[in-house]
Structures are given as structure tokens and as C-alpha cells.
């Protein structure tokens, strides 16, 4: 009966809406389109005030916080923690079913911090990239390891895997960190059943390959180009879309003259072969560490009256690009922050206008800060409101470029910086509802501190996210008004999800403060040094009698 009620409530909204989640939350971005939008509406703007905690699951792995997106399949939640533990938990009760502890080697340096942002599930297995740059497959029923493959020795490459894999058909696709190290990035695909490597896409072309000429001298060997967030997939086009991060050294570009392909680009690859179909470089010759690294949201919307298959990507420089995902053609671009001084904007073809670059031996104030006009935490898109919901951060930095030579696998940064407040007032965060094509702001929810948790939207007319102080909150999707909140006891840096078990809708959020940008935040807001760490998942639902 309950089940039927939920389906009726949801069904009017979900027909004709691809890319939204329903009972399950099967992929990192919700679905392959990475909308992070749920068609469930049992919890909605009219009853959200009654939303109640049902269970809390403590992972025990608190160092590094909890940045995960839990996946939910058929009433079971799968959670990966900072040090690559994986839990299967009853999604209705929070009771542990199994735990897998990845055997991390002792005494190695964890590059880019201890984080795991999620897993991928299929073929009866749970797939995870690890802090020492392995990929493992775990039996979905028992939690036992099935296969384990080294992508590249992390002590040599200065790189590892923190992003969730993307599973498409029989291929487990995995990116890599290492964009601020002397390293050459890639995306790998492994056979889902055996772990055998099927293809590798180098994000920096080698000698003789098209694009290698965009790197002076030997700079291509250590040019960064990491793929540190999970890609998306269009089944009809059979293309997978990944974002390639900044070139290294980050702030010093004189030793890597040229456009530095395919750094700061969105690349569209054939899933079966790994071959490049198209690319769009947002930032040629990046000298700001402004990573085109984040999620690729796949939207089908009319532009000037013509239906288009689109791809929306917000980058770390606080600028959003919208492209045609069939051809890569530029469609639109707009900033999501007010404080943006590294460029003046883009022209009709999406080319950067008015570059303002760091200089050697001279400190310069540039906005946003290296922490990003937005961090990697993801936006959501609601097919119901047709708005994009994204966080943004107003902050700047004093930056100086410093010449630097690469040493394989070691930090290769080429500059120093100090985060500062913008000229017009204190640094702060906001969560906005935007038109995805024009960037027009419909409402803006202001936050004292940067918001570093992903956004979840639902057909219940709600937008969920969390803040560094520990509040998990719900906003009205139409007005931005704060309708509900719950103090989880630790700050938010993960991604909340919606799902249903036996007709009862849940919203669950990770909480657990810990992040690569925490130090930047401490330097502007010293009191945040005292914010408590943690690592827990909290699940909420309406009271049984209230439904």
C-alpha cells in the first residue's frame, strides 16, 4: 500500500524525464546524466518540517572527514570512507551488513589527502579507486575482494584515486589525481569482471599524437592533466564525458608554452575504445589552477527554440560552460561568482577574453581563490523547475608565480598564494538557483562560510545541502527559503542522496568535516580550526504516522 502511494506520487513527475533517480541512487551523480535530482516527492515543501532522523551510521574512519556519495540499490546503502573502507548498510535501518577494509600499505604518503568520494556498482560487484592508486572490485553480497589492480605506483607518480569510478556496460572507468604533481594524467578502463585493462586515454598527447605540439619541449611528460572527478555517459551517443584538470606547474607556465591540450578541457570519449570524439578546452594555457575538473551535467533543453543535447560544466575559476554534447560546440558561458578577475569573460565562441595572469616576483590579487569559485562538490539540475542549483564562493588570493623545475611524482606548483577577502566585503558562500543557459539568478541563499557539500534536488520542490557548521538543510526549490535543518554534529563535505525502501522515502547525508581546502578556510576564518571532525551518514524520513 505504501509502495503504491509513493509510486503514484512520483509517477506524474517522472514520465518523460530521463536522468532522475527514483527508489535507487545507482550512480555517483545519481544517474549517468549527473543531475543529482530525485523524482521522489513524498518528502516535499509542505511536510518537510516534520522530517525526522531515522538512523545514524558511524563509519569510525574520521581522519579526512566523509566526502562520499552513498549509493543505494534495492534497500542497501554502500558507503566508502576516507581510507577506503566500504560498508554495506541496510538503508531503512542503518544496520551494518558487511565491511570491507582496503589493505592500505603502511607508511606511504597520501597525496591529495585521504578521501574517497564513492564507489560504482554492477555485475554483482562494488568498484572503488584507492589512495594508493589501485582499483578494487568487491563482492556486492559478501564484501570480499574479487580483484585488485595497480593503476600506477603512487609513490612514483605522486597520484592516487579519490573519485568514484564510472561503470558503463562491462567497463570500469577510473580517473586519477596528480594535477599539482609532476605527472601525466589519464583515464583507464578495466574489465568489470576480471580487472584486465581495456584502454587508456592519456590526457596529454605523446610525441607524434595530435595535440602534443601544444606543449613546449618535454613539458608534456609532467604536465598534470588529472581526472579527479567522475565522468558522465550518454547511452544514445555511446560517449563518456570527463573533465581534465589543470596543467602543471599550476601557476608558472613559461616552461610549458602552448595551449597545453587536453588540460582544462571536457573530453568526449567512445566508451568501447577510449578514442577521443571531441574536446572543448575551456582554459588554454591555464596559469591559475582553475581546473576544468568537475561534473558534467547532461541536459536536453531548447536553445533559441531548437532542442539541444547539452553538457554543462562549472569550473574552479567560477565560470560555467555549456556545450553541445554531440559536437562539443560552445553554446553559452557565464560566471557563478561576483568576484571573478582572472578573465573579463568569454566571446561568442567561448574563448577567454581579458586574461589577468599571475606574475613572477610580483604578488597580485586575483579572484576567485585557488579553492575555487566553487569547489568540487556537485550542483544539481531539476527537470521540474528547469533550474541549476549550485554553490559558489566569494573569495580571492594574493598569488605570485615562481619558476620551478619538475621532479617526477613530486609537487609541481610554480607559485605561492595567500587567500584573502574580496575588496567589497567578507568572503562568503552562496547557493543559487540559476537558469542553466543564461546564468540568470532566480534566488540566492547566502552562507557565512563556503558551502562545500553537494546539492540534491527533488520533485518534492526541495533543495538539500549542508554547511561547515554541521547543519543539513532543506530550501524551497522555488524561493530559496530555508524550510528545515538538522544539526549533524560535524561539517558537510559529502553528497546527500534520496531513495526509497518499501514505499518510504529517505534523504541521507554524509557528515564529517575534512578537506583539502580546510586550511584555506582556516586562514580566513580562524574559528573553523575548532570545527569537529567526524564521519557518519544520517538518514531522515517523515514519521510513520505522518505519511
Amino acid at each position, binding site marked *: 500500500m505504501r509502495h503504491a502511494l509513493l509510486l503514484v506520487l512520483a509517477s506524474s513527475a517522472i514520465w518523460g524525464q530521463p536522468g532522475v533517480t527514483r527508489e535507487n541512487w545507482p550512480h555517483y551523480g545519481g544517474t549517468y546524466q549527473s543531475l543529482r535530482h530525485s523524482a521522489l516527492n513524498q518528502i516535499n515543501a509542505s511536510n518537510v518540517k516534520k522530517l525526522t532522523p531515522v538512523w545514524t551510521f558511524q563509519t569510525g574512519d574520521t581522519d579526512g572527514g566523509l566526502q562520499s556519495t552513498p549509493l543505494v540499490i534495492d534497500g542497501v546503502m554502500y558507503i566508502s570512507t576516507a581510507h577506503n573502507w566500504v560498508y554495506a548498510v541496510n538503508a531503512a535501518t542503518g544496520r551494518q551488513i558487511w565491511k570491507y577494509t582496503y589493505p592500505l600499505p603502511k607508511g606511504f604518503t*597520501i597525496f591529495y589527502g585521504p578521501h574517497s568520494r564513492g564507489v560504482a556498482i554492477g555485475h554483482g560487484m562494488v568498484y572503488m579507486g584507492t589512495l594508493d592508486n589501485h582499483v578494487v572490485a568487491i563482492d556486492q553480497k559478501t564484501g570480499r575482494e574479487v580483484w585488485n589492480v595497480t593503476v600506477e605506483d603512487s609513490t612514483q607518480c605522486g597520484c592516487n584515486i579519490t573519485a568514484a569510478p564510472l561503470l558503463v556496460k562491462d567497463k570500469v572507468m577510473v580517473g586519477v589525481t596528480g594535477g599539482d604533481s609532476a605527472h601525466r594524467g589519464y583515464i583507464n578502463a578495466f574489465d568489470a569482471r576480471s580487472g584486465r585493462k581495456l584502454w587508456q586515454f592519456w590526457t596529454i598527447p605523446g610525441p607524434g599524437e595530435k595535440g602534443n605540439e601544444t606543449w613546449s619541449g618535454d613539458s608534456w611528460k609532467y604536465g598534470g592533466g588529472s581526472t579527479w572527478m567522475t565522468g558522465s555517459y550518454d547511452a544514445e551517443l555511446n560517449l563518456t564525458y570527463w573533465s581534465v584538470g589543470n596543467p602543471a606547474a599550476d601557476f608558472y607556465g613559461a616552461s610549458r608554452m602552448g595551449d597545453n591540450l587536453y588540460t582544462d578541457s571536457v573530453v568526449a570519449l567512445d566508451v568501447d575504445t577510449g578514442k577521443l570524439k571531441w574536446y572543448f578546452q575551456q582554459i588554454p594555457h591555464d596559469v591559475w589552477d582553475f581546473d576544468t575538473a568537475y561534473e558534467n551535467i547532461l541536459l536536453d533543453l531548447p536553445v533559441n527554440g531548437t532542442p539541444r543535447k547539452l553538457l554543462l560544466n562549472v569550473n574552479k575559476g567560477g565560470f560555467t560552460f555549456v556545450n553541445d554534447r554531440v559536437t562539443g560546440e560552445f553554446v553559452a558561458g557565464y560566471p557563478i561568482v561576483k568576484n571573478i578577475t582572472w578573465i573579463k569573460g568569454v566571446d561568442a565562441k567561448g574563448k577567454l577574453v581579458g586574461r589577468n595572469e599571475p606574475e613572477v616576483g610580483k604578488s597580485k590579487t586575483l579572484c576567485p581563490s585557488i579553492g575555487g569559485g566553487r569547489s568540487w562538490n556537485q550542483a544539481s539540475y531539476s527537470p521540474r523547475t528547469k533550474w541549476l542549483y549550485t554553490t559558489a564562493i566569494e573569495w580571492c588570493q594574493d598569488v605570485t608565480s615562481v619558476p620551478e623545475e619538475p621532479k617526477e611524482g613530486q609537487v609541481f606548483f610554480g607559485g605561492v598564494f595567500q587567500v584573502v577577502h574580496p575588496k567589497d566585503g567578507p568572503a562568503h558562500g552562496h547557493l543559487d538557483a540559476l537558469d542553466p543557459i543564461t546564468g540568470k539568478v532566480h534566488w540566492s541563499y547566502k552562507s557565512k562560510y563556503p558551502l562545500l557539500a553537494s546539492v540534491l534536488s527533488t520533485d518534492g520542490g526541495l533543495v538539500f545541502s549542508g554547511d561547515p557548521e554541521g547543519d543539513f538543510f532543506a530550501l524551497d526549490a522555488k524561493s530559496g527559503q530555508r524550510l528545515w535543518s538538522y544539526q549533524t554534529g560535524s561539517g558537510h563535505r559529502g553528497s546527500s542522496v534520496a531513495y526509497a525502501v518499501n514505499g518510504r522515502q529517505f534523504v541521507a547525508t554524509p557528515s564529517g568535516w575534512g578537506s583539502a581546502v580546510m586550511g*584555506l578556510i582556516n586562514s580566513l576564518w580562524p574559528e573553523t580550526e575548532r570545527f569537529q571532525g567526524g564521519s557518519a551518514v544520517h538518514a531522515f524520513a517523515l514519521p510513520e504516522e505522518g505519511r
Partner: protein
Amino acid sequence: MKQRLSSVARRAPFAPTVLILLLPLLSLAADPAEGAKIFRQSCSVGYCHGSGGTAGRAPKLIGRVYQHEFVMKVTRDGIPNTGMPGWKERLKPAELDAVVAYVVRISGGVLPAGAPASAAGAATAVAAVEMSKEAQLGKALFFDAVRGTRCSTCHALEGMGTPAGPNLAAAFYDGKAMREGKPATVRQARTPGGDSFPSLVVEQTDATMKIYDLTLPPPVLRTFVKGQVSFSGGSDWRHAKSVSHYSDAEMGLIEAYLRWAASH
């Protein structure tokens, strides 16, 4: 990471005493300008300690009042399983001394007269010098990241690489063995699902069996329920295929490196 560092910091006054006794006490006058420069290039970069130790991803160093011996230990050896690497093999001894002195100073700590220097860096430098030019070039080829698949994809040496193949520090394999080797330990494995692959058995317990699948590089460590896999005596797997992208000249250099590795 911050919490972990703090807990180490609390233990610091007692822990490194033994270490200090083992080190030669040199009264190197650490160069302050040099320390600041090394800090800028190696420590304040990225999301690490921030400009002048004001904090990035890694903890703030200003005002923490660190003791010299603690900073030296952490800087030399790193903090295992955190983002803090050991610098003893990355910096020369004088550079290590300079940057440690700089960190102690910005933390508000007091530098002892005749601060102890780092012997480990010197020891590493000596070890590195013993390698011939050929062996050094061979080492670069052994770990050549540009190739994607390289020797270290299947062999570990000097703490790097995947230890699927034989331990090359324990026995020397010449160019002929590398070209023509047909190891008896590689056997064809078969699963009930019909999968058949060249394999190396790594570990067996009463319940499970861990096997390297050598079908394609990199080797995949697969776990099976015991009895699920059957083996035939031989395999058509050949080492020659794995090294086919190295030229004869390159193989000669790799051989020089392997000779060095097996004799150290």
C-alpha cells in the same frame, strides 16, 4: 591529518631522543634565506602549508612553537599515511637543515646551538653515487612512466612497483633471460565460468586463493574460492612479449641496473 599531527606533536619531546643520538652532531649554520626559499618551493606549495606556513591543506606552522628535534624527525621521515612526505631523499642534508631551521623559527620555537644535521640524506647521496651511468639509465627505463607499461608494472625494486614478478634484488636475470624467459611458475588457470588465463599463485588459505592474472599488463590480483580454479601444467605466456617495446640497447641498460640491484 591535522589531528594526527597534533597527537604526534604532543609526543614529540620524548620520541626522537634515540634518533638524535644516532646522528652525527654537526654545527652547521643553517642559512635562513635558503630555508625560506626551500620552504617556498617545497612546503608552502599546492594545498600544503601555505605561504610562510600560514596553513593550506596541511596545518598552520606559525605560532605552534615546535621543537627542533620534532620538526627534523617529521621533515626527514614524514608522517605515515598522511599527506606529509619524508624529505630525507628529496633534499640534500644542508637543505634539510635549512628548511627545518626555518620552520622552527616561524613556529616560534628556539633553535638549539649546533642543531643536529640529517645524516640520512648524506647516506642516500652516497648510495646513489655507487650506481654506474648505465645502471642509472637502466633504472630510468625500468620505471619509465612515459611508456605506460614498464618493468615496474610487474616488478618492484627499491620500494617502487608491483611485486607480481620475481624479486629482482634477490637474483640477477640477464638480457637472455629477459628475452627468452619462460618461467615454470606461470601456469594456465581455468575458472568454472570458462575464463582461462596465465597465472601466478600468490597466496593460499584454507578458503581462498589469490592469483595474479597475467593476461594483459598490469597484472590483476584476483581472489577465488579455493577449488574454483584449476591449473594446467604449462602456459604459453612469455616474458619476451612484456619487454618487446624496449630496444636491445635499452635492455642492456636495464640489465646493468638489475646487476646493480641484485648486488646491493
